[in-house]
Each structure stands twice: as C-alpha cells, then as structure tokens.
C-alpha cells in the first residue's frame, strides 16, 4: 500500500510538451514556433556577446566566491534592475521609495508579489480579493496567483479576435466593473501571447480608471528592450503609471533581454508611498523569501549587475538587445510580405502591428493541429507563434504552410 497510490498523473505543461513533440519529429523541415526563447537566423540559441565577456570577468575575479547572497538578493543587482524599469532619473527612486527583491526569474518575481499581496493587501490574508489577468495571458499567471492562495482569478477583456487587436472598450469596461481594490496584472510591453500593446493614449485611459477605482497595478515586464529595441520606449507604460502616483509592483525578467533563461534572473520592483512603508514591505518580503528559497542564486544577478553598472558593457548590452529586436522585426515584415504575395485569405497586418516575440496569428485550433500534423510546424493551440523560430531559411516554408492551412482548413 503506497502513500502515493492515489496521486493522479498530471497533464503536462503545454508549452514544454510542444517542445518535446518537436524534438521527436523526424521531418527535416520541422519548425518550432513554440517556446518563447530567442533564436538566431541559424535557428540556434544565442548567448549574448556581452554575457560571454562578463562571464570571463567573473571567472578572472579571485575576490568572488559562492557565498550566500542576502535574503533579498544582490544589492547592486536590485537597484540597477529597478533603474532599468523606472529610469535613471525616476523621481520615485530619488525619493527613496523604490525597493526590490531579487527573484528566480520573472516567475519568481510574480510569485513573491502574489504571496505578499495575499498576506498584506486589502486586509490580511484576503484570499477573496479578485485578481484579473488579461484574456488571453501567459498560461502560468493563473497558477502563480492561485498557488499564492487567491481564490478568485478572473479574465479582463483584452484581445479582440475579430478585429485582431485590442478590445479597449472591453478592457475599460472590466476595469470599471471590477470590485474596488481588485488586482490587475498588466503586461508592460510585448503582450504575451498576443503581441498587442495599448497605445500611450490607451494606457492613459487605463491608468485613469485604475486610479479612480483604486485598483492595484501589478506589471509583468518580461520583454523590456525586446519589443521596440529600445529600453526606455518599452518602459513607457510602467513609468507613466509611476508618474500617476500609483503604489505598484513590477515583476521583471532578464531571461529574454539578457538571454539568461536558465540562470533565473528576475527582480520584483516595488514602488511605495514613502520609504517607511517600503521598509516594512521589504521586511515582510524577506519572511516570504525565507520559507520559499532562503536567498536567490548569485551567478546571473552578478552578471547583470556588472553589465548594468559598467558603462561600456551597458552600451554593448543595449546593442545586443536591439539586434535581437531587429531580427524579430525583420521576420515580421518578411512573413507579412510573403503572405500578402501568396494572397493568403484574410488580413495579415496584425503580424507587423503586433510587437515583441509573439504573434497571435489568428489560426484556430483545427488549423493549428493541421500545421503540426501535416506540416511539422509547431505552435501553441491558441495560434501563438514565436517569431524567433522564423529564419530566412524556413520563412518560405512557414508562409506556404500557413497559406495551405488557411485555404484547406476552416
């Protein structure tokens, strides 16, 4: 008789299963448009040149060791990472009301923020506070907040499938009708999975409602620099909300923009009313960290800190980021042009209007299945493709496949 005899087999996480299936596919023409990781034009992972440089610096520095970091992480990482999100000259930083927790990737930052909110926001342990995530959103958002104890996780209207763009009225409508103090998870830029971001004017409208209705702002910033190629442009929304006086969280990931996926480098930036509130918040964050992972991993944070705090390396990093963003923009333009040339039914402007790593193609589940089974092109059931999976060598095959799919499968 086993203690675990009743443990059911869990369904695998979709995006990883997709990668697995791709690996096992013998078709030489196969293309993986699944997982959100950058690929070069040769379809290879890319370790940023600046990262290689800094790794050598770290190896050569004999004063470094593997000792524990502080519970909240490496101080020079936390502060420089927050500056990246909020801007060097952020008034909030100058007013000493910005703090941060180094976390395990963007996921870890969301987790810490969620755990804190469940304990301390809107009363104590108020698990009934509604948490709103965009429809659709990154599939792990729901689980992060649910596991932190929140019982009421709801979608807010976001993607308009018909017009293939932002459903602004729906979004604003949900903001107006959400119970006061509801938590809203906002994508800072390069919305995952749709690639559709609000314009500046639209963000201003969102902020106005959120302020008036006392809704909590929780930004998820996983693609800063990756969307437009410019760090400051990609941080516009986050910084605007700061100027509007919000107390807010911003979960930052350095997985994509530093290519440090497996080193789990993340930062939860906290903007508080004043330094006293900030201090107390950080002290409680420490307690949550202590019962989860005690203190965060040092390698990746050190690497990012050295890069951000050394002018020549910082400049080189920005270049590396821009080159990734540029390749994505090129693939968007190429794919759209090819689909237009093929006269594929439908409009394909959304491919170039959307921004960041992902594109919501608009392909329906049957069409997705066809792409996978008949063409060995792997994409998510939602129709999401990772633009980084496209290369100059496979883009013709992908365009033709989309064409054939749309024509033959409804």
């Amino acid at each position, binding site marked *: 008789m*086993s203690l*675990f005899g009743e443990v059911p087999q869990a369904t695998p996480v979709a995006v*990883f299963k997709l990668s697995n299936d791709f690996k096992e596919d013998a078709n030489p023409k196969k293309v993986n448009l699944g997982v959100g990781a950058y690929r070069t034009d040769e379809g290879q992972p890319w370790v940023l040149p600046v990262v290689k440089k800094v790794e050598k610096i770290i190896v050569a520095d004999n004063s470094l060791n593997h000792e524990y970091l502080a519970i909240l992480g490496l101080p020079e990482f936390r502060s420089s990472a927050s500056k990246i999100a909020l801007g060097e000259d952020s008034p909030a930083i100058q007013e000493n009301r910005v703090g941060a927790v180094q976390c395990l*990737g963007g996921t870890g930052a969301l987790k810490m923020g969620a755990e804190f909110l469940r304990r301390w926001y809107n009363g104590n342990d108020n698990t009934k506070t509604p948490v709103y995530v965009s429809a659709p959103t990154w599939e792990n958002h729901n689980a992060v907040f649910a596991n932190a104890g929140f019982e009421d996780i709801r979608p807010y209207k976001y993607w308009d499938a018909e017009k293939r763009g932002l459903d602004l009225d729906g979004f604003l409508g949900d903001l107006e009708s959400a119970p006061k103090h509801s938590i809203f998870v906002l994508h800072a830029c390069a919305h995952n999975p749709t690639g559709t971001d609000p314009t500046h004017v639209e963000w201003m409208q969102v902020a106005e409602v959120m302020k008036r209705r006392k809704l909590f702002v929780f930004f998820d910033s996983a693609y800063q620099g990756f969307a437009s190629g410019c760090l400051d442009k990609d941080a516009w929304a986050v910084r605007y909300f700061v100027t509007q006086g919000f107390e807010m969280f911003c979960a930052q990931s350095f997985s994509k923009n530093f290519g*440090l996926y*497996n080193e789990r480098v993340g930062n939860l930036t906290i903007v*508080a009313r004043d330094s006293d*509130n900030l201090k107390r918040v950080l002290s409680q964050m420490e*307690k949550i960290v202590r019962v989860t*992972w005690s203190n965060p991993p040092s390698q990746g944070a050190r690497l990012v800190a050295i890069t951000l705090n050394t002018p020549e390396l910082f400049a080189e990093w920005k270049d590396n980021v821009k080159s990734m963003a540029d390749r994505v923009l090129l693939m968007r333009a190429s794919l759209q042009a090819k689909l237009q040339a093929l006269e594929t039914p439908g409009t394909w402007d959304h491919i170039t209007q959307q921004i960041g790593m992902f594109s919501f193609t608009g392909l329906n589940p049957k069409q997705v299945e066809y792409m996978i089974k008949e063409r060995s092109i792997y994409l998510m059931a939602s129709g999401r493709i990772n633009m980084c999976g496209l290369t100059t060598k496979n883009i013709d095959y992908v365009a033709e496949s989309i064409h054939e799919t749309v024509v033959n499968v409804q």
Partner: protein
Amino acid sequence: MALLKSSKIISTVWVHPPLGVRSIRASSWWSEVQMGPPDPILGVSEAYKRDTNPKKMNLGVGAYRDDQGKPYVLSCVRKAEAQIAAKKLDKEYLAIGGLGDFTKACAKLALGDNNEVIESGRNITVQTISGTGSLRIGANFLSRFHTEARDVYLPKPSWGNHTPIFRDAGMQLKAYTYYDPKTCGFDFQGALNDISKIPEKSVIMLHACAHNPTGVDPRPEQWKEIANLVKKRNLLVFFDMAYQGFASGDIDRDAWAVRYFIEQGHNIVLSQSFAKNMGLYGERVGGFTVVCKDAEEAKRVESQLKILIRPIYSNPPMNGARIAATILNTPDLYKEWLGEVHGMANRIITMRELLVANLKKEGSTQNWQHVIDQIGMFCFTGLKPEQVARLTKEFSVYMTKDGRISMAGVTSGNVGYLAQGIHAVTK
C-alpha cells in the same frame, strides 16, 4: 526595419501630474504592514557586519570558513567551472525538474551505487533551490497529497526554518524529544517514547547526519531501533540531509541512516543540499527525492512535482547544478571533492578539540566533552540565552540565541579568544 512603423513607439507623451495628485492617495496600501522581525539565523550575520570590534567572530550562519576565517571555494569547484566555461554551453531553460545529469548523480550520492531504488526507477529526484527549496517543495507536495495526516513531527530542537516552511505550506508542526540538555547529547529513550505515541501516517522529520542545531546524531544501533519503531507506527519519513560528507568526512558513512531506512522498506522523502559540502551556497543547489512503490508511481509523482514547481519559479538555476554534476560525474574531480570534504570535516574536528583544550587552559571546570562528541558544523554549547547575550555584547561573538555556534567560524587564530569569552560567561 525602417519600413516598419509602430504607432505605439513613435512619441513619448510625458504628462506631468497636476500638483494635487499626491494628496489623492495620501495613505498607503501598506500602512498596516508590520515591520517583520529579523531572521533569527541570518539576522545574526547582519548584526555581526555592523559591529566594529576587530576581534568580532561570526559563529552564526553555517557557512564554512578556512583557517584564515575566509570563505573557501573548493579546488574541484574551480576546476569544474573551468571545464564548463570551455564547453561554451547555451543558457536555454532547464526542464522543470532540473538538469538530468545532476538529478541522477544527486540520487546516486545519497542512495549509493547500485541501489535497488535507482535501478528499478522507483525514485523521482528533482533539482531544487538548495535545501530550503527542497524542503518547501516537499512540504507543498505532502500538503497537497498526503491528506491523511497534517502533522509534521520535528526533533526538539530543529533547524529554525523548518517550522515556518511547513507551516506556510499548510502543515501543522509537532515535536518529539531529541536533545538532552543535561548531557548535551541524544535523549534516546525520550525520543523513542515520543515517537511511539505519534499517530499513524504522520510525517516524521529526521536529520540524516550532523543534526542542526545540536550536532548530536544517533548511533547506528539507535538508528536501527528508530527505524523499527517508525515502521511499527507507520510514519512517513522525511529525511533532511544538508551535511552529507560534512559530519564524519565520509560520504557513505553520513548517508548510512538514509540508506538503512530504505533497505528496511521505508519509502522516504529526502531533501539534499550542496550548499555546504560543495561550498555552493549562493548557487542554490539541492535535490528533492520521493522513493515510490514503483516506476509507474514515480512518474505520477514527478508530474505533480512539476505542477508544484512551475508556479513558484518555473525551472531551476543552471550554474550550480552544472558545477555539481560535473564534479559528481568526473572521476578525478569526484575524488578530489571527497578529499576536500574530508579536509573541511577534519578542520572542524580539530577546532572542536582545540576549543575544549583552550577552555581547560582558561581554567574552566565545566564538562565540555559534548563539544567533541557532537558532529558536523554546529555545536550546541549549552549556553543559556543570557550567557549568549553577554558573549555577544562583551566579546562581539555572534551566535544564535539557542547557544548554537558554527564551528566553521572558529580558527586556530581565534579559538583562544572564543575560549576566553565562553569561560568568562560560564564560570
């Protein structure tokens, strides 16, 4: 790229807020958030850092120091790092369960070569965020799936962070007698008495070796009786092994209890840390193992562990696991590692002996035999809180309130000073 426009990124509209906006939300969301107390263990280091006394000693955190009081990066670690750097690997996400080369070697290290459990594939071992992360995943797993019993029985005393971890995961904490303050040793009868009353199916936490904080371990014949009693009571065994190699200096000797229990048919859960025995503290290298009935059950358990891990941190960090895997899987590095672990354990044993010798030299008439009998990084001195407070205030010797000192912080250069201080507050 110049062809492309995106109306969202054309201009930066900077709106300066009207002067009155700050007063709209004069109160903060966080006004009711209390100041959290400093962590009892990690807080000690923070206090130590602020002290300006040149003779100060940090005997708080269990981090190994060499005889110059410096952090020690193992030579096998440096070599492994060089090997890894030469390979020019990418930084793609690991699987949720971590690096395969690491998890296999991690299980083998604990269970031994040719262990039946590994050969039959009935264990699932996942990479975790060091020991804390492993305990947390384990606690979450038990909380979700071990629904017949909510109680976790910890030895009295146990590592300070055990309680908050299990509590936060939704389990209830109870205790069984373990440490005997009269002898500064193991209260074997007391432990057996308490364990015999633990309700069936409860979880019992056992420190595999080098008990933290007391340094007091059961002897093999005592472990055998405990194993027997635990089986009679039908308890779920959770081993915490954070010091394999560090206790006796011998990897296999330190894993003896774990292996014995498995041999006796206990399907245990096990947490391992490589923070101390490989000096990989800040890299966060650990493993969590569930020994299942068979390979099929192991697969089901694995799928559920992944579901637990994903919403916490998605997948674990590569750097430390890669180093550990390289060491464990490369024969000459492995051999070198065994030697270095042995060296670290030996230095600690020597310091124990020196401390007692110095206390005698100071003229102390107390019985300090327990300092030598206890094993591993920590020593439960037997000092009371007031004595600890004096030791810290008057001598700048930092330790936890329970009288625990990290022997790793003792050197041949400062052991005399430490003996002076301890003698002063206990005479």
